[in-house]
């Protein structure tokens, strides 16, 4: 504990709890054509895959957002409600489309598995909001804890913790 004040240590601990490990060096990352689509606009979601030869990805769309198609072969994609499953077979990119509702916001969340590497993890959530307007989530029951940790509140808390840690260290 030499040289580390208790409050700084506490903040570092807080940081480790809030920043999901998957953010750094994740084998699957997601980008959106826009995070603030207009009502009924189609959002293109691109999944970039690195180092997973044979695996699977499951994406979960926020309520109201609808799957609209994919460039992935038909026999390697499956849609059930708000969830879309993809079989990864030496793919480095999977693209799919989502139609935005008249209004609504939420996170696109995802999970990946590497069957050969025998590992798995979460894809960092991507926030979408029609016209940039935030709405209260209607149903958060499906959200795993790891995804909750990366919510805007968590990021804010982590930044605050960093600031406090820095301040505490200078005292």
């Amino acid at each position, binding site marked *: 504990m030499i040289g580390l004040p208790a409050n700084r240590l506490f903040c570092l601990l807080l940081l480790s709890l809030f920043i999901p490990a998957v953010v750094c060096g994740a084998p699957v990352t997601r980008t959106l054509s826009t995070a603030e689509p207009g009502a009924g606009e189609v959002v293109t979601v691109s999944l970039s895959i690195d180092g997973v030869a*044979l*695996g699977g990805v*499951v994406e979960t769309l926020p309520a109201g957002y609808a799957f609209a198609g994919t460039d992935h072969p038909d026999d390697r994609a*499956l849609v*059930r*409600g708000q969830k879309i499953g993809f079989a990864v077979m030496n793919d480095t990119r999977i693209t799919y489309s989502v139609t935005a509702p008249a209004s609504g916001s939420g996170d696109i969340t995802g999970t990946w598995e590497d*069957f050969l590497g025998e590992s798995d993890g979460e894809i960092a959530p991507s926030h979408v909001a029609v016209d940039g307007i935030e709405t209260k989530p209607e149903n958060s029951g499906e959200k795993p804890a790891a995804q909750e940790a990366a919510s805007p509140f968590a990021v804010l808390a982590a930044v605050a913790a960093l600031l406090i840690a820095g301040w505490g260290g200078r005292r």
Partner: protein
Amino acid sequence: MKRRLLLVLALLLLLAVPASAADGIPGDADGDGVLASGEYASAVLAYLDAAYMGGVGDLDRTDIQDAAWVYARWDGKPREVVDSSGRTVTLYRPLRRVVTFSGESLETLRSLGFDMEKVVAVDKYSHEKSTFFPECRDKANVGSIWSPDMEKVLSVRPDAIFLYATISTAACDDIQKRLEASSPGIRVLRFDCFKPATYPGEIRTMASMIGREERGNEFASFYESTMDQIRETTAGIPDGEKTRVYFEYWFDYTTVSAGSGYNEKTGLAGGMNPFAVGTAEYPVVDPEAILVADPQVVVKLAGQGLAVGGYAGHDPEALDAIRSTLLERPGWSRISAVKDGRVYVIHSDILGGAQHFIGTAYLAKWFYPDRFADLDPHAVHQRYLTEFQGIDFDLASQGTFVYP
């Protein structure tokens, strides 16, 4: 009491083998024995559906990982291997829970880069070799082939067991029969991994079983580069010019004869063993006969009971003491080997098992120092430990394998 024991054994048998170990490739929907691309993709989606999307399905995570493994490494087909006992074994899944009754097979698996976490139990000798097999210290100990702990074997729920192929065959046959009768899904694989004639083939077969063909070729080439150099160099030496060698086994005045592995390695290294004839593998010789044979080189085997040298400890004095007792034997001062300072001690760790090529290199160098001037057994040994065994063992300060 007996009834309760039977009940426990019956329960262990039920739990012993993952039920699907021999049931075909997971995801092979049409059951034709081949996991086609479409079948694999369907299996993945069925798994994802059941695991994450609220659907139902039969495949669990291990199933889909095995399916992916077979699809990627075996081109979606079962892998048929012929082990060293001549049996064809069909593998539908990768090895996940391995028990080894043979330290040589265990060592070879490690040379091939097999995930040692998947070895769930080992024989008692490998268990004791904590310096060489540090990762086995905490694994289950299943005893020896002569006294196997079958209850322990079944309790670790193996899907594959490694036994010897051509030595101690009665004991290994017995273990195999008991396992196959009780748990038909267990894959029994028999390899020797200590014989120069069959080892390169065994390396490649085992590599193909675990999907490490490239590593297998690399390791076999490394092994063959040493052994081929020895074979090619000694091939041209006429019998009459071969170095006369008295090879003494662990026990005093006990030598090696035709049929023993040590005699084979002595011969490979170009040595002429005057006591090779005979039916016993390890005959006791008349001390006078050794004086009459007048060997040019004497090699004494050390390492009985793991007591002295080898990987167990850096103890050159112990090997020196063994050598000194030889020099002091009555009449030995008249032997050419003693007069010329060509009496050597070698530890069985590098001559009797999977590392026999290292010991054979030392023999060749001792028998023909000029012909093998560029052969460096010490360097071969260190490369083997560092590159293939992946253990942190510095021969400059650890272990004692030869003396002087």
